[in-house]
């Protein structure tokens, strides 16, 4: 799966949780879930569950803690897909 495809699919997943829609216009690796998109921190667990379903992977708590930006999420998804 290409990086671009992963990021495109990620964007779709986070969309319903985003409270600052300007953040979506410039959705890139540096985009920070809490600061740029203003996703409620409680909703990060829902984003993780949706990512798990979308990519058919499992994201453990340690990986989730390191998932602050779109780039972090992309790397974690790539690692998990490889490990499957």
């Amino acid at each position, binding site marked *: 799966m290409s990086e671009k495809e992963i990021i495109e699919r990620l964007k779709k997943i986070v969309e*319903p*949780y985003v409270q600052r829609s300007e953040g979506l216009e410039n959705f890139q690796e540096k985009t920070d879930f809490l600061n740029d998109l203003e996703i409620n921190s*409680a*909703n990060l*667990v*829902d984003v993780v*569950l949706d990512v798990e379903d979308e990519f058919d992977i499992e994201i453990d*708590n340690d990986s989730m803690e390191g998932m602050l930006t779109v780039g972090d999420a992309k790397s974690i998804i790539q690692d998990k897909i490889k490990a499957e």
Partner: protein
Amino acid sequence: MSKRVVITGMGVAAPNAVGLRSFEHALKNGTSGIRFFPELEDLNFTCQIGGKPQISKELLSNYFTPLQLKGLNSSGIIYGVISGTDAWKDAGLEIGDEKSPDWDSGIIFGTGILGVDKFREAIYLIDEGKTRRLGSTSVVQTMASGISAYLGGILGCGNQVTTNSSACTTGTEALLMGFDRIRSGRAKRMLVGSCGDHGPYVWGGFDAMRILPGKYNENPKEASRPMSASANGFVPGSGAGALVLEELDSARERDAHIYAEVLGGEVNSGGQRGEGSMTAANNEAVERCIIGAITNSNISGNDIDAINGHLTATNRDSTEIRNWIKSLGRKGSDFPYINSLKGMTGHCLSASGAIECVASVLQVKNDFLFPNINCVDIHPEIQELISEERIPRQKTDTEINILAKASFGFGDVNAVAIFKKYIA
């Protein structure tokens, strides 16, 4: 000096109508909201009928954001938010996005049990070892105070925001708790009400107690028969009712529409002593509750034009009438008019008090009595106590100045509220 408290907004999600205007229409027409549910048949329920408000997806999207709707599986929250938001808007109050909440407005919104279907989802996941799959809203959809928490966030209330729970008195109790808070000057406005979840996991326990009717699965609309000889158990229901209580000066200042005044009320318990038990009322406590409500409203029993009873359609209906007679000192043709909403909605359990308070206030405001549907054969014990014409079977237009509303609940708890027509 105690503040005067008036009702400036109402909302309702009842089995026979959703929204205040259609609810009033349903009341006047005696529309039943009782339906047959194949799911209950599949689950071998004795009573396969019940009352659920009919809510479309389109309607839901008027009250919840797409994010709130994601994984929302708590019917009590759905009904409570619809009725609460409606009441707020009906009162002409804004839903602001200011950084500061409205410090003068609070919420007391009760429930019996919340988010039962969501809790079931969680239980299945947990038992499969998939706790991490619960998502972030499992807690807020199943905590009892989930309903006041949802409404508090939607409306931005900064005064007391809480949930009370006292079985089938919950809604009437919430109203009286909000009334006290305004009367003592600690809030200007209180959104009060109650909600109740629907479905087999709420109703099953009552079915097991064999206090629900099993003979009306083919003709559900005839099943709920308060005060009738053929009454054989209450039909379970669900939904929510909400009322905005407001300090009279505040309502006048903003030129709000006033439905009625809350004169007073009483809550108490029979302590499960005497004939009182976990599931039955102590009659002395009921009488004291009625008399207390009359006394602290500064009226006499003779001032009451109508009673909206608890009257669930069990053998307790005649006991309730007897308690009213003793408390008011009025019987036969001198007895006030009396009706029970449960003929149309079934017994909406924790939501019943609030839905019935809304129905009561509409009657006071608009001078009518809704019909006691299905009461074609008044119970002989009741016939001996009060005149038949005191139990309207047709919609009746008559001036209602003061109405008493009673709710009684498991745990031997009672609540009586007194509503009076407001004349500017």
